């Protein structure tokens, strides 16, 4: 009986978490020009409008480019930091560790103000460099996390065996360490991409017109009009995230199975 209650409770929690998404999905098919629930008639009209909206399309392109750059850079920086943190005992190691975790602890709005104040004097507001740097600030902690985990699971003896059998330190890294932490690199890169792709708070402080991202354009659009286009766009964003996650899961899962 209690087991039954327990399962019921879990189902309710899931429903509570998924309800907003469900509502958005349903509303995205509404034909009226304002957001309301439930819809009276359904169509793909909003989706067609989204794809015809040049602002959204070009913002999407920029978001993807920024996301890819952030993902790649966050993986490279994360790898270097993780190697230092896992493999070397140096003075101030705890400090570095804390600094890397700090963005987890500080609200994004606070970070946003700080980053803006730093970027402004360097003329980096509303530039690709600026937005990428800002996104790196919040994504590197995640890549350090996943890559550190992978590195800690690499058996030191395996690297030592490579060394003894003639591998230079660089060859050890390239031929042994890198392939062994590849799943962690991919996972970290994807998380960084998705965070950058979804991030609105910080972006709003840093970009205006030149490098506006999809989330900031959604925000701008909402300020003037609320219609089912926004719901349709949201559904598309969720779909992209899900596809990316599933694709990576399959990819890494497959590599592991081989």
């Amino acid at each position, binding site marked *: 009986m209690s087991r039954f209650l327990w399962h019921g409770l879990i189902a309710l929690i899931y429903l509570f978490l998924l309800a907003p998404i469900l509502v958005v999905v349903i509303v995205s098919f509404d034909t009226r020009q304002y957001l309301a629930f439930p819809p009276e008639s359904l169509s793909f009209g909003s989706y067609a409008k989204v794809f015809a909206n040049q602002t959204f399309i070009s913002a999407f392109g920029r978001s993807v480019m920024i996301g890819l750059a952030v993902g790649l850079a966050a993986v490279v920086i994360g790898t270097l930091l993780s190697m230092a943190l896992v493999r070397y005992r140096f003075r101030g190691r705890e400090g570095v560790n804390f600094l890397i975790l700090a963005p987890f602890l500080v609200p994004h709005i606070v970070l946003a103000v700080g980053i803006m104040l730093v970027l402004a004097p360097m003329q980096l507001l509303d530039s690709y460099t600026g937005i990428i740097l800002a996104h790196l600030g919040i994504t590197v902690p995640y890549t350090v996390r996943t890559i550190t985990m992978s590195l800690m699971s690499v058996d030191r003896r395996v690297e030592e*065996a490579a060394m003894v*059998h003639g591998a230079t330190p660089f060859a050890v890294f390239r031929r042994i360490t890198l392939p062994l932490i590849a799943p962690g690199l991919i996972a970290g890169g994807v998380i960084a991409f998705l965070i950058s792709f979804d991030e609105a708070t910080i972006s709003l402080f840093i970009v205006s017109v030149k490098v506006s991202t999809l989330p900031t354009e959604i925000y701008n659009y909402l300020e003037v009009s609320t219609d089912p286009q926004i719901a349709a766009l949201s559904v598309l964003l969720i779909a992209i995230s899900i596809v990316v996650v599933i694709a990576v899961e399959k990819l890494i899962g497959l590599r592991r199975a081989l």
Partner: protein
Amino acid sequence: MSEHHVVVDNLVKTYPGAATPSVDHVSFALPKGEMLALLGPSGCGKTTILRMIAGLIEPTSGAIQLNGREISQTPVHKRNMGMVFQAYALFPHMTVAGNVAFGLEMRGIPHSERGPKVQRALDMVKLGHLGDRRVTQLSGGQQQRCAIARSLVIEPELLLLDEPLSNLDAKLRDEMRDEIREIQSRTGVTAIFVTHDQDEALSMADRLAVMSAGKIEQIGTPREIFDAPANEFVAGFIGAGNFLSGRVTAPGEAEIEGLGPLRFEAPARIGSQVNLMVRPHRFKLAAPGPNAFTGQVDSLVYRGQILTLGISVGGKRLTADLHTHAGHLPAKGETVTLAVAPGDVTFLSEAAA
């Protein structure tokens, strides 16, 4: 010094934070092509010595020479050594052949020459048919053999083996023992072999170094170690023994407490306390007489070719190994007499009374 291929001189390793050194002034020298076994109980510092020679950890003090050249400052990858790790340490993301080819690749051997060398090395350890397997899909014994092939294929200057046979079943272990010995003498590679299995050490090595608590207790040929152990530790660690202590009453004769007089062949001062040992296989069934002890058989273990029996004599237990083809075999409860020739009594130490 120069005729020795490997010279280890007063090597010391104290791990950071440790109160006592894990390796304490260890010295030995190996001529080219010799196989040395490092033998000792768990934690006595065997792996630590190998890791210092390989360059994976830095000695606290001491010198290591290879071919007359000091190598303490040589980076690991330039030392040209082969090593079989205690836990294999195969490259988990590569195939069996990939693992074996790795060292050749690092040495810049062209692809066309690698193939046949790898195949020969794999055939040698009987893994020739498994080259394309992932190493994670090998049994423990197969992984061990893959690790051996990986370390041999590069024709190293020095081969380091850290308990390479510990995970094999008895039959395969015997085969691999012979195999490693055969490969080692054929290739003429100098080798240092770590084990805590005395049979393995005795049967494989040209010389043995018996260690305890970071120190070498004795170094010598298997025969020297077995027949003339330097002290109680070595005698007890290599092979079984009946340890007998007593007071010297006449030249070459000691009165063993509870047992009676025992004659031995070693100079010892009259009145001093001596520690003697008789290996179980030195006892023979005999009629009562000098150097013979009579008692009732209270344990019997049949081991195929050998029968191990225990008798109690005056509160002491004596163990003897008898060949099972030696005619009459005693039964439990039977009264027997065990005799030992004075020359077969090992003299261990003497202390003034």
